[in-house]
């Protein structure tokens, strides 16, 4: 399963809990509750204050765990950037006047090999995104124009053809910046 689908499933699980919580909260708060003081209900009880402290602790823990997980090698993008950064080959692509200029068509890449894509824009901001044939995204990056050089290292596990699309709006010609079967990955498991 693609990593974005796993994240999506976790997210939907969490928001289902959130929505259910709000519904239960609504139902419970409509019913009777404990007596509160006449000063507006600001009762200084250790229970609620402890609850607030616990909530802060919980939020900090979630933030800490979230950061650790997203910076760990679990997701391929972090793995290739932070942990396995040595590319075996480099492919340089130029972008100009709403067109991709590839070194060859299609670009042939061996599977399971770290490949560095170097993308240079001669004029505008573009995007460089690689997509599977089912439309799902493998990876992308923004293409900031010269003098900047945009680089990303990726390892393709699955052989087959991949499409390339500009992932950033650069003018009304943007939707046509799509190249079918621009990359072919060979070898590896089928």
């Amino acid at each position: 399963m693609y990593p974005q689908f796993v994240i999506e499933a976790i997210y939907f699980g969490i928001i289902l809990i959130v929505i259910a919580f709000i519904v239960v909260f609504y139902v419970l708060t409509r019913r009777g509750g404990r007596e509160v003081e006449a000063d507006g209900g600001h009762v200084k009880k250790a229970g609620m204050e402890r609850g607030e402290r616990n909530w802060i602790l919980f939020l900090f823990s979630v933030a800490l765990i979230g950061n650790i997980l997203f910076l760990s090698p679990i997701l391929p993008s972090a793995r290739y950037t932070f942990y396995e950064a040595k590319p075996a080959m480099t492919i340089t692509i130029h972008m100009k006047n709403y067109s991709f200029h590839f070194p060859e068509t299609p670009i042939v890449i061996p599977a399971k090999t770290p490949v560095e894509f170097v993308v240079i824009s001669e004029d505008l901001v573009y995007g460089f995104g690689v997509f599977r044939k089912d439309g799902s995204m493998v990876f992308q990056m923004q293409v900031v124009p010269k003098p900047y050089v945009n680089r990303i290292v990726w390892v393709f596990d699955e052989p087959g053809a991949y499409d390339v699309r500009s992932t950033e709006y650069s003018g009304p010609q943007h939707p046509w910046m799509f190249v079918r079967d621009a990359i072919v990955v060979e070898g590896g498991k089928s």
Partner: protein
Amino acid sequence: MNENERKILVLRFVVVALIFFALAGIEGILMRLRILNLLTDLFDERHFYSMMTAHPFVGIYGWAYMAVMGAFYFLVPYVMKRDVYSKRAAYASFWLMITGLAIIWTTTFATHYAPLYTLYWPIPVAVELAGWNPAAIFSFGMGVALVLASVLVFFFNMFATIFLPARAEMDGGEKAGAGYVFKELMLTAFNLDKLWAKVKGVPHYTARVFNYPVFVVAVFRGCVDTTLNAFVIGGVGVLLALFGASYLFVGSSPSHSLIDPLVYKNVFWWGLDLIADGNVLIFTAGTWYLLVPLLLNRQLYGEPVVRTVILADLVVSLLVWNHHMLADTPQPLALQIQGQIFTWGELITMGLTMFAVLATIWRARPVKYSAPLKFVLASITGYAVGGLAGIIQANYASNRFFHNTQWVIGIHGHIQLLVGLSLTIFAAIYALFPLLTGKALSERLADAHLLLMGVGGVVMGLAMGLAGTQGMLRRTLYPMGLGIYGPYMSVALIGALMMAAGFAVFLVNVVRAVGLGALVKLFLPHK
């Protein structure tokens, strides 16, 4: 300005805001149809993108800002028992905003100028490549500058309303200037007075922020973000106007390379993000902090903590822009990781805000839910659903496949704005309506409005988000066919139509209560 004049001012702001909301909604539905590759004969790609350029300006500034400005012009003096500092400035902000937006809208509609709200350099000035009309660049830039000038006038009016009378009292009526307001703002917004007292060793010093109601604290701390935002985005407007003027009057423009595209993008996102992560969240929190205790006749839970949370929100909001730059590989990696870590800070600040509001409601059991309270609860749900999606996409690793997809704008952006922010604004409208008009709105119609808009917003946002994980990009038409994204976009259209129906119910409710004539009379000169 007497109370009646303030009421008229506020109602004018709100009615115009609702007109802009309707306009943004119509644009949204038209764009949804065009994404489905319908109406292709009616508008081509250029027209579509020009509409997409105007849409966020109309939605954010026309709807959200106008409504917030109107509400604050009433609520801040009401809470502080003071008059608005300047009536003239209040109306200046009103007309500057309408004029600026009218220029932006007309320019994009008439010339199909379409740099989008992102305005990534050098796209907005790429006359030869993108085929822009130089007059459109000038006019659009002026429109943006006017909109942000309106924002600046409004916030200086707010700061003066909040801080100036205190000086007048302190100095026996001595006239205080802008410098005094700025000093007071900086000292109070960032708790610098407390810091200074600590340095000086003053015992038992109470920070000045405690002199102000928590709602007002949220207003001026949020205004710090928005003022900075206005300088940055207004500055971009002036820059575009200068380039446009150069094309028009000299026949060429300065070299685009005068502006570094990456530095520009950093400055732009730093400024723009202050709306999303500073202004929207802090103003929303402030509105909840005001409405919920008022509606329940209860004190806000954990008020001292809440003031600190607002300060934390302000500081965090100044440091999160890098989550928009996670896909920019020339951006230093350290900055990207910093952006990721600080964005998680928003989970903490927003989580604490929600906790304080929910705890206040919980303590008021049994609660009789009025329309505004139901809208607040729904808006909390919207922020939770949209905010969590935002936290997920704002990580270096996940951004590789979420950046610029429908996930970002659907499940995060639109749910946050339409279910979170808009329902908060409607909560304020429902709460203020009887105060401003002396008439009551139907609770049953309000329930229908909430159900249609809340569920419609979530349906639309989730459908867009699901398309995003399938790889569908935002800001992209698929002229060669939508493929697997098609069904998701059809469901998103149903959600959008539900929201439109909800808004129609709201309009019926208002017209039933006050009549169309009263709304028209509002804009006639008053004695």
